[in-house]
């Protein structure tokens, strides 16, 4: 790996920013390393990855495929443990499992529950009374314009509707952080645009901290306050870019924006570099 790639990862941000409430760090990845061991040797998926996420921020992460993005998320949501290093939420040494809302790439609504019952699922787990659950779920479904479909089963809904359901299910229990793993990947272009704008609306309302993984640069820049670029495997932070495009943004009109275009080419170049590293690495 070239030295310049590592240098540009200027992550050591002074702690003074913590004094402003909206710039409080909510989540810290400290030297997170993950090595998978098997009979055929070991594979390092993440290598001393460090990153700080501020409260209320929309952080997007891009990287070449196979760079350990999913591993990173799995560790964050508690499905896997890091081999070394730690992730701290609110300064605590570990992330409490129930603090994270998780939206996966595939639509994962439970097919045996109606849309409303799906949104209520995490509330049910927390023992929220039925009437209150109903209020909360209907309020959220209204926000994503699905109130008329509350009592439908997932098989009766379109892919875009299901993914909207997934998003509000992850929000319904007011998690500290919303984690999204390429949530719009399988959708068609039109639906994706619709959902991207809807997500921005939701975020503007709730100001939830969002960590959003994608392989679509347009999406990464258009949605994020900052874009994190990961290196090829083993994954670590290559660079972090602040996106200074004013909000509210509409993703369809970004192409006219000069800073969008320069970011797109810079991040695109960096990513191409990493993909080259990866393909030169091993087939």
């Amino acid at each position, binding site marked *: 790996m070239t030295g310049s790639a590592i240098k540009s990862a200027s992550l050591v941000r002074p702690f003074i920013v913590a004094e402003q409430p909206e710039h409080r760090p909510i989540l810290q990845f400290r030297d997170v390393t993950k090595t998978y061991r098997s009979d055929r040797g070991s594979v390092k998926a993440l290598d001393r990855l460090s990153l700080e996420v501020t409260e209320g921020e929309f952080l997007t992460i891009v990287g070449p495929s196979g760079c350990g993005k999913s591993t990173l998320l799995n560790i964050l949501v508690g499905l896997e443990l890091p081999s070394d290093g730690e992730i701290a939420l609110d300064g605590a040494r570990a992330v409490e499992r129930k603090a994270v809302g*998780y939206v996966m790439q595939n639509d994962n609504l439970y097919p045996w529950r*109606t849309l409303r019952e799906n949104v209520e699922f995490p509330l049910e*787990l927390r023992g929220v009374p039925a009437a209150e659950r109903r209020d909360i779920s209907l309020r959220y479904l209204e926000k994503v314009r699905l109130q008329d479909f509350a009592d439908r089963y997932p*098989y009766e809904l379109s892919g875009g509707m299901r993914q909207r359901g997934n998003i509000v299910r992850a929000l319904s229990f007011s998690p500290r952080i919303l984690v999204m793993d390429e949530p719009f990947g399988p959708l068609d272009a039109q639906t994706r645009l619709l959902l991207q704008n809807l997500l921005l609306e939701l975020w503007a309302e709730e100001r939830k901290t969002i960590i959003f993984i994608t392989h679509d640069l347009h999406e990464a820049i258009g949605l994020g306050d900052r874009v994190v670029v990961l290196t090829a495997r083993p994954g670590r932070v290559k660079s972090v870019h602040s996106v200074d495009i004013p909000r509210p943004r509409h993703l369809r009109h970004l192409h006219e924006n000069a800073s969008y275009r320069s970011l797109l080419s810079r991040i695109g170049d960096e990513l191409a570099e990493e993909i080259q590293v990866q393909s030169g690495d091993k087939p």
Partner: protein
Amino acid sequence: MSVETMDAEARTESRPLLSYRGRVALTRLLLVAVIFGVWELASGRLFSAFWVSKPSLIAIYIWKWIVAGDFFYQMSFTFGSMLAGFAAGTLLGLAAGVVLSRTQFAADVLDPFLIAINGIPRVALAPLFVVWFGIDMLPKIVLVFTLVFFVIFYNTYAGIKSVERRFTDLAFVMGANERDLFAKVILPAAMPHIFLGIKLSIPYALIGAIIGEFVASSAGLGWKIQMETSLYNTTGTMAGLIVMMLIVVAMNSLLAVVERRLLRWQPASRYGAAQNQ
């Protein structure tokens, strides 16, 4: 099946007089009428009624059988042992499926034993059960149990094993404890498999009860059929067979209603297909 379903949808759009379901039911009735009609007309003309009897004779026989009161006695005997064995087999099969699907070690250890036991032809077991449990209902109940148990067990086991990882992972991330995970995710996800097992085991339950009665019995439909056959009374034999068919059909329709409520979340074409298999 999928061709049939597409066909069904295409035709619903042109709004025929009867719904698809209605036409299926009507065609079935017609088919029954044709079979019984041909049977009635051919019997005594193309072949002797002695061998296969005649629908009219069978109907009269069943009517007399019912009026005499003996029908209900035989039915309750067979149906009773069938239901008791079915209930016990379902409950224990479910429990075993749940337990073994959650403890891989026990499942691996027991696997060859279960295969071996399930491999025993039940006809071979029936006489032994007579020696152990006599000729009343108990040996039949046990026989039914040995058949139903394995069907339910294997389906429950496979159903729980096939629950997709993403469903359980997500529940875990959302904060589910072990109990929630099982009751709210694993069990409902496995329900289609379990239900299929329950449906498949109904004919087995009847087979078990009848075999038990064939080997040695004091009463029951199987006993009745065997007795009539030994007297060369084919009308009586056929009457018994038809009653058995009706039992299976009735139980299946009852289950279909339960299934439609329980598995409402599946697309209609799927339970339609399962029902008609």
